[in-house]
C-alpha cells in the first residue's frame, strides 16, 4: 500500500501563560489545584502534585471546575425581594443598599436580643471565622451543617478516641493489608480514599465492604456484605463478641492505651455508680500489676491490670474490661443471634472475624523506630497490625449512628489497630481528647459577645445549653436533653423550630450556602411552606431571611435579601488548622484560596462581607478601640487575626516567614503561601509518626506547632464517662435532671459501652406497611446540588432512577422504563425505577440531590433534573410522627441530634408512567436568566 504518510502534529504546544495554584472547592476535600491561565482566563484545571491532600490527582468535579466558574447560574449582584417569598422575583440593588438593609435589621436585634438572629452556615469552609463572627454578635444560634451531615461520626470518634475517620484520620494505606469499609463513604475525603484504595490494591491488600449497596468503593471490594441498613452496629458487636470470645484482642494495647483497666464504681446504690475511680487530682486510677495497688494511669512503669477488682470505702470497683467482656460475651451478640436482623449469615460473620484476627495477629509486624510513651517508658519498636477501618455517612446518618460509630471504634481498638503501623492513623491536629475541646457556650446578653464558642463537647449534664428555667437556649435545641451531645448543632431543626416558635421566636434567619428549601432539608415541601407562612397580621412567621450563595440555588427564592458570593477561583479563603483541617497522617497542613481571577460581576466574598458587617455592627472582634475597622477584608483577617498570641488562622510562614504554627503576624504571609503553591505543610517527625496520643515526641511537636499549649496524653475511652453521667442523671442522680418523658430514652441510648438499638423510625412504622429501607448516596461526580449547573457534570448525572433490588423488581413485575409510587409514613413520591442486583434485597436507593426545582440553577424548566430527577427528602420528616403527648420529637439521633436520613422506611408500588416525577413544584423565576444553548469551552484555539 505504499509508504505511510501522516500529517505532522504539534506535540509541544504552549500549555498556558501562567499557572496559579489555589484550593479546589468543588467539594469538602479541598485538593490543591493548578489553574492554567491563558489571556487572563481560566483555561484548564488539574491537581497540584505537591499538595498534601491530592498529590496531583483530581476528581470529576474538580476537573470540571471551569464549568462551575463560568456557570450561567452565578448570581450577579445583591438582590432585594420584590415578589412574595418563593416566587424568585427580585430587584438588583447596590452593595451599599444591601449592607444598609442588613445592618438595619441586625443592629436592633443585637441591641435588644441577640438570640433573635439565627446564623447557620451550610457547606461553609470558614467555620472558625463565621463562628467567631456569630460569637461577637452575641447570638447563641450558630452552627454549620454538621448536624445534618455527619456529627455522629465526628462526635462518636472524638468521645471514644479523640478523633474520627475522614478529616480526623486515615488508614495507614502503605501498610494496611485488610481494610473494612462501612457504609457510603464516597462523599467525604474522597480523593485521599480513592488514592488509598489504589495503593492498597497495588500492594495486594484486601477490602471488605459492608454496605447495602455495591457501588463505588464497594464495587472494588473483595468481599461485599450487603447488610440491612441500620444494623451495622449489631454486625460490629457480633464481630466483637466473636473476637473477645476467642481471645483475639490486643490485651497489651488495651491495658496501656485505653481505659479498659480503669476502675468503675460497681455499686448501684452509689451516686457515682458507673463512674470511674479517680485520684485527688482527677486522674483515673488503675491497679498496677507490679504492686497490686491503685495507681494513676499515667505513672512511669505502671502495668495496668485488666482483670482487677478493687474495694474502696466499701464500694466495689471493677475494670472497664471486665464489664466489657461480660457485656459482649452475651449470646445476644453472637453471630447466630444477629444474623437475621443484619441480613448476613452467621457463618460469614464468623469468617470475617477470623480474617480480621488472622491479619491483625498473624500478619503483625514491627517498625524499627524507637519511641517514648507519655509514661516515660521507652520502646525500641513500633508494633503494627495491618488492619484498618473507615466509615462515614452510611453508619452515622441513623438514629443509632453515634453508638454504631462507637462500636466501630471499639472494634478497632480491641484489635489494637488505632495509631499503630498498618492501622488507623490520626491526622494532626488530631488526636485531641474531649478534654482538649471547649464545652458549648450559650449565654447571650444584649450588645455583648457570647460568653464563648457555641459548639463544643459536653462532659455531662452541667454543660448543656439550657437557660435558667431549663428551656433550650438555642433555637435548634442543641445540647439539650433531647440530644445532649449535639457537637455540631442541628441545622435541620432551625427552620422547623423557628416556624413553630419552639423554643422561641426569632427575627432574622441568616443562612450561608445552605440549600434549605431543597436538598438540604428533610420535608422539603414543608420547609417551603414554613418559609412562606404568614401570621394573622400577614407578616411572615420567620420575619426576615438573609441568604448568601454564589449561585441561583432553590434557596435564593426564599430569602428577602441576597448577598451574592464569589466562585471559588475569585476569593480568599483559609483552610485553617483552627477549622476543618486538611492534614495528612504524616503532616500538618493548611492552605489558602486566593483570587486567581477577578469577578466579572458585582459580587463579593461572603467572609469579606461579614467583616464589613462586623464593622457596621460595631462587633468587638472587628473594630479597633477607636471604632475603626480592624480588618480590611477576609484576606486581612486571615493574616492578622490571632486566636491566641502567635496562633492565627494560618500556621505557615509566620513571623519572619520561617516560623511554623506559632509566630508573629507576617504581613507577607499570603504571598509566601502563593509562592509555595497555595499551601503549607510540616511533616511529623519519624519518632512521632505513630502512637500519637501517647507518644511524647508527638505531644511535644503538637505543642510546638500550637495545636495545644501543653501535652495532652490520654486514654481511649471504650467506656464513656460523659455518657454515663447523662445516664446517671436519667436514673435520678444530680441536680440537673432530664424531663421525665426523656428518662427512659436516655437510659437506653446513653449506655457507656457501645450498644445497638433499632433505628427510631422502626418503632413508629410497621414493617408490614413499610417493608423497604430507602437510602441515598452522593455520586462521586456531583457535590450536593452544585453539579447540575455544570454543563459537563450534568450530562453524567442529569436525572436519577430509584434503584430496586431483584427481589422487589420481580415481585412487582417492573420493567425497564417503569415508574413507581414510593410511600413513607410522611409522604409519597412518584419516580422512575431501575434494576440493581448488587443490592440488599430489602433496600432501594437513589443518587442524592440530582433532582432540581424548575427554574433554579439557570436550567431550562423542562431540564431532566426537574422532570426525571427527584429527591427522597420529600419522604423524610424532621420530626418523628406525633406520639399524642403534644411534644415535637426530632427525627435525629437522641445522643447527638444527627439527622437520621437513613432510617427511612417505605413501601413501593408500580404505577403508570406519569409526565414527570412528583411532587412537582411551580417553576421559579430565575434571577439570572437561562444558560446558553451551546457551550464550546476554549480560551485560545
Amino acid at each position: 500500500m505504499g509508504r505511510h504518510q501522516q500529517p505532522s502534529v504539534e506535540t509541544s504546544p504552549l500549555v498556558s501563560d501562567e499557572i496559579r495554584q489555589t484550593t479546589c472547592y468543588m467539594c469538602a476535600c479541598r485538593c490543591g489545584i493548578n489553574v492554567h491561565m491563558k489571556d487572563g482566563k481560566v483555561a484548564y484545571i488539574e491537581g497540584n502534585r505537591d499538595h498534601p491532600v491530592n498529590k496531583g490527582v483530581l476528581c470529576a468535579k474538580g476537573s470540571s471546575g471551569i464549568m462551575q466558574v463560568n456557570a450561567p447560574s452565578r448570581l450577579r449582584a445583591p438582590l432585594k425581594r420584590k415578589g412574595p417569598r418563593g416566587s424568585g422575583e427580585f430587584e438588583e440593588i447596590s452593595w451599599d443598599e444591601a449592607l444598609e438593609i442588613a445592618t438595619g435589621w441586625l443592629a436592633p436585634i443585637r441591641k435588644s436580643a441577640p438570640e433573635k438572629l439565627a446564623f447557620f452556615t451550610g457547606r461553609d469552609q470558614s467555620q472558625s471565622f463565621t463562628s467567631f463572627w456569630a460569637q461577637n454578635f452575641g447570638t447563641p444560634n450558630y452552627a454549620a451543617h454538621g448536624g445534618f451531615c455527619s456529627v455522629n461520626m465526628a462526635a462518636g470518634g472524638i468521645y471514644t478516641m479523640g478523633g474520627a475517620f475522614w478529616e480526623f484520620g486515615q488508614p495507614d494505606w502503605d501498610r494496611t493489608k485488610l481494610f473494612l469499609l462501612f457504609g457510603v463513604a464516597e462523599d467525604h475525603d474522597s480523593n485521599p480514599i480513592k488514592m488509598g484504595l489504589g495503593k492498597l490494591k497495588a500492594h495486594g491488600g484486601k477490602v471488605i465492604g459492608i454496605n447495602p449497596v455495591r457501588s463505588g468503593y464497594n464495587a472494588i471490594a473483595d468481599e461485599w456484605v450487603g447488610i440491612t441498613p441500620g444494623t451495622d452496629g449489631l454486625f460490629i458487636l457480633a464481630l466483637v463478641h466473636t473476637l473477645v470470645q476467642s481471645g483475639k484482642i490486643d490485651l497489651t494495647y488495651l491495658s496501656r492505651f485505653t481505659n479498659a483497666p480503669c476502675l468503675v464504681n460497681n455499686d448501684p446504690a452509689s451516686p457515682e455508680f458507673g463512674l470511674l475511680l479517680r485520684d485527688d487530682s482527677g486522674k483515673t486510677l488503675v491497679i498496677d500489676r507490679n504492686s497490686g495497688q491503685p495507681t494513676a494511669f499515667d505513672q512511669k512503669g505502671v502495668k495496668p491490670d485488666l482483670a482487677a477488682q478493687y474495694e474502696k470505702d466499701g464500694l466495689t470497683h471493677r475494670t472497664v474490661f471486665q464489664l466489657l467482656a461480660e457485656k459482649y460475651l452475651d449470646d445476644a451478640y453472637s453471630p447466630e443471634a444477629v444474623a437475621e436482623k443484619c441480613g448476613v449469615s452467621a457463618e460469614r460473620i464468623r469468617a470475617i472475624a477470623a480474617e480480621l484476627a488472622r491479619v491483625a495477629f498473624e500478619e503483625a509486624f514491627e517498625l524499627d523506630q524507637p519511641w517514648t510513651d507519655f509514661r516515660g517508658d521507652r520502646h525500641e519498636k513500633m508494633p503494627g497490625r495491618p488492619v484498618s477501618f473507615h466509615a462515614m455517612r452510611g453508619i452515622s446518618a441513623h438514629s443509632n449512628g453515634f453508638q454504631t460509630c462507637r462500636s466501630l471504634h471499639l472494634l478497632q481498638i480491641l484489635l489494637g489497630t488505632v495509631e499503630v503501623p498498618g492501622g488507623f492513623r490520626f491526622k494532626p491536629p488530631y488526636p485531641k481528647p474531649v478534654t482538649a475541646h471547649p464545652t458549648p457556650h450559650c449565654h447571650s446578653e444584649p450588645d455583648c459577645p457570647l460568653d464563648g464558642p457555641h459548639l463544643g463537647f459536653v462532659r455531662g449534664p452541667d454543660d448543656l445549653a439550657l437557660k435558667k428555667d431549663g428551656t433550650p437556649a438555642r433555637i435548634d435545641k442543641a445540647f439539650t436533653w433531647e440530644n445532649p451531645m449535639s457537637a455540631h448543632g442541628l441545622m435541620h431543626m432551625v427552620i422547623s423550630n423557628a416556624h413553630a416558635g419552639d423554643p422561641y421566636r426569632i427575627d432574622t434567619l441568616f443562612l450561608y450556602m445552605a440549600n434549605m428549601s431543597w436538598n438540604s432539608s428533610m420535608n422539603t415541601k414543608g420547609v417551603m411552606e414554613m418559609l412562606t407562612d404568614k401570621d394573622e397580621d400577614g407578616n411572615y412567621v420567620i420575619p426576615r431571611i438573609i441568604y448568601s450563595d454564589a449561585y441561583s440555588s432553590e434557596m435564593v427564592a426564599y430569602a428577602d435579601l441576597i448577598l451574592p458570593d464569589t466562585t471559588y477561583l475569585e476569593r480568599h479563603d483559609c483552610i485553617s488548622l483552627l477549622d476543618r483541617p486538611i492534614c495528612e497522617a504524616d503532616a500538618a497542613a493548611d492552605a489558602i484560596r486566593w483570587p486567581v481571577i477577578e469577578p466579572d460581576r458585582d459580587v463579593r466574598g461572603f467572609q469579606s462581607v461579614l467583616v464589613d458587617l462586623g464593622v457596621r455592627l460595631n462587633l468587638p472582634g472587628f473594630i479597633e478601640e477607636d471604632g475603626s475597622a480592624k480588618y480590611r477584608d477576609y484576606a486581612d483577617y486571615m493574616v492578622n487575626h490571632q486566636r491566641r498570641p502567635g496562633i492565627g488562622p494560618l500556621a505557615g510562614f509566620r513571623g519572619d516567614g520561617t516560623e511554623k504554627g506559632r509566630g508573629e503576624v507576617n504581613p507577607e504571609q499570603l504571598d509566601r503561601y502563593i509562592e509555595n503553591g497555595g499551601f503549607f505543610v510540616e511533616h511529623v517527625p519519624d519518632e512521632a509518626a505513630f502512637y500519637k496520643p501517647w507518644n511524647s515526641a508527638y505531644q511535644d511537636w503538637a505543642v510546638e506547632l500550637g495545636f495545644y499549649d501543653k501535652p495532652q496524653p490520654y486514654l481511649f475511652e471504650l467506656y464513656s464517662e460523659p455518657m454515663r453521667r447523662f445516664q446517671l442523671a436519667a436514673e435520678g442522680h444530680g441536680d440537673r435532671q432530664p424531663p421525665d418523658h426523656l428518662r427512659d430514652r436516655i437510659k437506653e441510648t446513653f449506655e457507656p459501652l457501645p450498644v445497638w438499638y433499632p433505628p427510631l423510625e422502626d418503632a413508629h412504622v410497621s414493617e408490614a406497611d413499610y417493608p423497604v429501607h430507602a437510602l441515598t448516596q452522593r455520586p462521586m461526580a456531583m457535590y450536593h446540588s452544585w453539579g447540575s449547573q455544570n454543563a459537563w457534570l450534568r450530562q453524567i448525572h442529569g436525572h436519577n432512577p430509584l434503584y430496586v433490588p431483584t427481589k422487589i423488581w420481580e415481585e412487582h413485575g417492573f420493567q425497564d422504563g417503569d415508574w413507581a409510587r414510593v410511600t413513607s409514613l410522611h409522604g409519597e413520591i412518584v419516580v422512575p425505577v431501575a434494576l440493581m442486583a448488587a443490592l440488599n434485597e430489602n433496600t432501594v436507593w437513589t443518587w442524592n440531590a440530582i433532582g432540581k426545582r424548575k427554574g433554579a440553577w439557570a436550567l431550562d424548566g423542562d431540564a431532566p433534573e426537574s422532570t426525571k430527577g427527584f429527591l427522597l427528602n420529600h419522604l423524610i420528616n424532621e420530626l418523628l410522627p406525633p406520639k399524642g403527648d403534644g411534644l415535637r420529637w426530632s427525627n435525629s439521633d437522641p445522643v447527638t441530634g444527627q439527622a437520621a436520613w437513613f432510617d427511612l422506611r417505605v413501601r413501593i408500588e408500580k404505577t403508570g408512567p406519569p409526565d414527570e416525577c412528583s411532587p412537582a413544584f411551580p417553576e421559579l423565576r430565575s434571577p439570572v436568566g437561562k444558560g446558553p444553548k451551546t457551550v464550546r469551552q476554549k480560551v485560545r484555539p
Partner: protein
Amino acid sequence: MTSLPDQTEKKLGLVIDLDTCVGCHACVTACKGWNTENYGVALSDNDAYGSDPVGTFLNRVHAFEVQPSNGAAQTIHFPKSCLHCDDAPCVTVCPTGASYKRVEDGIVLVDEDACIGCGLCAWACPYGARELDQSAGVMKKCTLCVDRIYNENLPEEDRVPACVRTCPAGARHFGDFSDPESNVSRLTAERGGMDLMPEQGTRPVNKYLPPRVKDRLTADKSAPQLKPVADSPKGFLAWLDKTLEAL
C-alpha cells in the same frame, strides 16, 4: 494516508485496571478539560443547560453488573476510550485520510482539517470510541494526549495523558506495549490483561485488567473459624488472668 502502517515504532496505550476503578468519572472530565482546550476544535456541549444536553466526550465510564451463577452480583466500573488498535478499522474506512495511525507510536488520530465528518470511522469502530462533534462537524477521539506526552512545556512527570494523571485510584496506566519491560506490559502479563471484543480482530493496544475473584469468604465454607477460649464468662476471666500473667 488511510492505510495502516505495517508496524509502529512504539505501541503507546493504556492499561485500565477494572479491579481498582471506582467509577468516579475523574478521567472523563479531566479528558474533556484538556481536550476541549487543546488538540483540535473544542468539545462542544449542545443544549448544555436544557432538556437534552449532549456533548462530545472522548472517554466515558460505564457501569456493568455481573451476576455469577453462585453468589452476589458484582458491580464493575468500566472506562472506555479509543483502544488505538493495531488493526484499526476506523482508519482504513476513512475516505479523506483524516484518520491515521502514527508510525512512531501507534496513536490513532484524526487530522481535523481533512475530516469531512462523514461518520464512517465511528461506524467502523466497535468500541464507540469516536464521536462526531455536533458543533464543528468533525470527528473527535482520544489522542492519547499526544500534545501532553511529548510536551516539552510540561514537567516530565506530567507527560502522560490527562486521564492517567488525574485518576485518583491509580486505575489507569500509560506506557509502551512494544517494550516487554514497560509498566503496561508487565501489568498486562501479571494480571492477564485482556482485549475487548477480540472477535472483531481489531487487535486493540489498550488492555483491561480483569477484576480479581470476589466474595471468597462466602464461597469458601471451610474458612478458618475462631475457637472460644472458654465456655463461660468465668472461664473467660480465668483465661484473661492467665494470659495477662504471661504478657
